């Protein structure tokens, strides 16, 4: 045996040992309780949601919400600035999430209006002058795009924090689909889908606003002293729902919030003075200053605590408060837990809707694993039987290459942290059937060369040499389609594309390098000149 061959055999052996240790041994160790060092099991092949069981959610971020908030805020700021500068307008209305309209600007104040509006809005809005002193403001396209993008990114971060608080191991939160506004949330091992959903999509929009009037039993009663009109800088917000002990009530509050959820530093469950569940919160330093100013200036008035556009309670401000407060008003213990969790993790920038929802129970996942393992074993046995029957001793060569292929595939997948899914198992089984094709092509060529009267060594060399380019071409063609599968795929299908791609790459190595080395080894064991090949 020459030294090149010895090195090749050593390489084959080393590759086998390494990938077996990484890819296969941890699985066997877990199954049969064999001893395994921690650093090895750490990198164990990850199972996808369809095998492990869990919750799979696809959400859409209603990015229009974020645009609308921005447009409303800008139009209110403009109203405020115009009032300070004493420029009268007849109306400022938000006409769509990205547009608002200002009407009734007197001709002689036009220049002044343009200056104020320009200073305040020109960074984000374009405006067009209409007839009769009206202006239409429209959000700039790049600002709209950025705001939408930001809303999705922020929503993902918020969901990430909330899911972490839920204590789910290895959650997956990622962008989904091509539209750009969808988020995939995968929670392995979770089965309480209702709770997961309510925590993830709870907007938790907390606002503290000064109450101008109310509570009143009807909207009309509330607006009696305002001639039935809602003042332009005010909003009507409903209070508790109309149950027997807490009939529906209406509040007239300032449009601009004194404090919002963003000013919160922490929130935790506690009790109110009547020992009912409540959430106590503390504020950031900036929030404290704002809160101190707000409460100091409004002693004796009511402060509405508004959660998701509903007044939870409206306590009277007794004195200046700076850094702490309590949210109370008919909560259950569970609601208080959820509310403090979502307040801690921050508000969502926009509301979320669910597009897709899958729950895979652990028993279904286990069934799939069983089916996957069974079909792998059946597929492998069939192919092994066929190769031995058809190619005799050389069949062993192909089988060794095939098993190497599968071991390297599993090892690589574990090493790079790929996820095994049920379609991934299908890809694994197909890799057997398709991978062994390379050996078939080589063997058939060797047979042909032998039949043409070439010697064994020459036939083997010719077989491997000539088929190499064919194999390269077939593998590239398959890789091209696997690549686009990746692009198309989501979750489980990606697992399939991954298995297929890695399987194709390792197959090139095993069918050419491993198989050739085995043939060379075989040849050294006998007298090459007189040798025959069992093929």
């Amino acid at each position, binding site marked *: 045996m020459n030294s090149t061959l010895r090195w090749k055999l050593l390489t084959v052996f080393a590759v086998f040992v390494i990938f077996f240790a990484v890819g296969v041994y941890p699985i066997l160790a877990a199954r049969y309780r064999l001893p395994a060092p921690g650093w090895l099991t750490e990198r164990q092949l990850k199972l996808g949601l369809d095998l492990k069981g869990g919750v799979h959610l696809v959400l859409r971020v209603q990015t229009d919400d974020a645009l609308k908030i921005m447009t409303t805020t800008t139009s209110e700021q403009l109203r405020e600035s115009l009032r300070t500068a004493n420029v009268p307008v007849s109306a400022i209305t938000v006409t769509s999430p990205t547009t608002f309209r200002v009407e009734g600007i007197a001709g002689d104040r036009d220049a002044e209006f343009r200056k104020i509006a320009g200073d305040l809005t020109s960074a984000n809005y374009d405006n067009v002058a209409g007839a009769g002193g009206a202006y239409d403001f429209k959000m700039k396209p790049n600002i709209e795009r950025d705001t939408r993008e930001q809303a999705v990114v922020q929503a993902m971060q918020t969901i990430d924090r909330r899911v972490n608080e839920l204590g789910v191991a290895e959650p997956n939160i990622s962008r989904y689909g091509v539209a750009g506004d969808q988020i995939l949330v995968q929670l392995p091992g979770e089965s309480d889908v209702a709770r997961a959903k309510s925590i993830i999509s709870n907007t938790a929009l907390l606002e503290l606003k000064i109450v101008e009037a109310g509570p009143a039993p009807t909207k009309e009663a509330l607006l009696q002293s305002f001639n039935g009109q809602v003042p332009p800088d005010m909003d009507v917000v409903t209070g508790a729902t109309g149950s027997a002990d807490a009939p529906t009530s209406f509040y007239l509050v300032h449009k601009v919030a004194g404090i919002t959820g963003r000013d919160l530093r922490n929130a935790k469950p506690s009790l109110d003075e009547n020992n009912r569940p409540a959430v106590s919160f503390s504020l950031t330093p900036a929030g404290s200053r704002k809160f101190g100013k707000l409460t100091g200036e409004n002693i004796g008035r009511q402060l509405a605590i508004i959660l998701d556009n509903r007044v939870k309670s409206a306590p009277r401000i007794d004195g200046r408060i700076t850094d702490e407060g309590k949210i109370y008003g008919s909560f259950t213990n569970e609601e208080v837990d959820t509310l403090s969790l979502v307040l801690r993790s921050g508000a969502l920038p926009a509301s979320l809707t669910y597009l897709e*929802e899958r*729950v895979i129970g652990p028993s279904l996942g286990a069934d799939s694993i069983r*089916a996957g393992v069974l079909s792998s074993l059946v597929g492998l046995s069939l192919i092994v039987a066929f190769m031995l029957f058809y190619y005799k001793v050389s069949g062993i060569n192909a089988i060794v290459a095939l098993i190497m292929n599968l071991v390297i595939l599993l090892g690589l997948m574990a090493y790079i942290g790929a996820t095994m899914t049920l379609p991934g198992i299908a890809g694994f089984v197909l890799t057997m059937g*398709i991978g062994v094709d390379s050996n078939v092509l080589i063997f058939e060529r060797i047979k042909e060369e032998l039949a043409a009267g070439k010697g064994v060594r020459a036939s083997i060399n010719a077989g491997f040499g*000539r088929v190499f380019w064919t194999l390269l071409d077939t593998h590239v063609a398959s*890789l091209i389609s696997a690549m686009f599968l990746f692009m198309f795929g989501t979750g489980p299908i990606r697992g399939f594309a991954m298995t297929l791609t890695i399987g194709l790459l390792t197959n090139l190595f095993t069918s050419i390098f491993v198989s050739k080395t085995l043939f060379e080894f075989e040849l050294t064991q006998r007298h090459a000149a007189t040798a025959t090949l069992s093929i």
Partner: protein
Amino acid sequence: MQIFHNPNYNFVKWRWHAIALSWIIVIAGLLMIWQKGLPLGIEFSGGTIVIVKFDARTDVQQVRHALDQSLPGGGENAVVQGYGDPGQNQVMIRVPHVGAETGTSLSETADAVTAALKKGNLSNPQVVGTEIVGPSVGQQLTRQGILATVLALGGILVYIAMRFQFSFALGAVVATIHDLLVTLAFLAFFRYDLSLNVIAAILTITGYSTNDTIVIFDRVRENMRSSRRDDIEGTINTAVNQTLSRTVITAGTALLSALALFFFGGEVLHGFAFTMVVGIITGTYSSVFIAAAIVIIWQGRRRRTAAGKTQPVSAAPAATAARKPKRRAS
């Protein structure tokens, strides 16, 4: 051992029959799809699937009865069927509608189904899995699936054109499109749901079915250098015969693994495995009959146009073959 001893079948002679047969299958399949539609998996159609496990054997009829009684709107459009191993007493219920795509209400239908089963007199129904897909998901997937398939075909066309010549690339891609259409036809005949997994199988076939074609084309190119240049039909026919046993064996091993999946891979992979089985068979058939036929037809046409331009008949294929002598063929 050898399946075929020096085979010498005249495949090329049968090309028009083969093309006719393929057209019949494809047209019948398209008619079927046009008439009855392709059954869509829940990912594409949207809807609600609830998989329920019972303590004791529960008849599909009993489940349907419970739905008829208590599900608002009845179980008229519901598909109820056994799921997985019969010993597990599992039933799958598929309803075409979902809750509204607003807020968290998507799961309302699933909740209604579960509630209806609980009300019925059934042996302890436990929900082991649900799958709820809103209507907006499907359209996006369809677009993406078609795009991915078209791009994959385009990529393969360019690659083969680079490595061989354009007529070969055309032959390979037409053969692959043929395989996709035949596979779709069989999906329609056997009423398999078009699911994400099935699309994955179809894309896999796109790559796999070119493999046999490449093997044959490689041999054609090798033979072109040694044989008479003007006899493209003879050259191709020889190549198909020379590679016949490997074409059959490679398809055979792939088929073995696909059949293992079909029979043992479980409920979820059934459609996938069926698609692979059909794709592997038609892929082999089209490599032998369709791909080569297209090359002959295309080159014949070119030769005739070339001859029309007063070029000597025998020089045209010689020029074609000599144009890309890029490497040694296998």
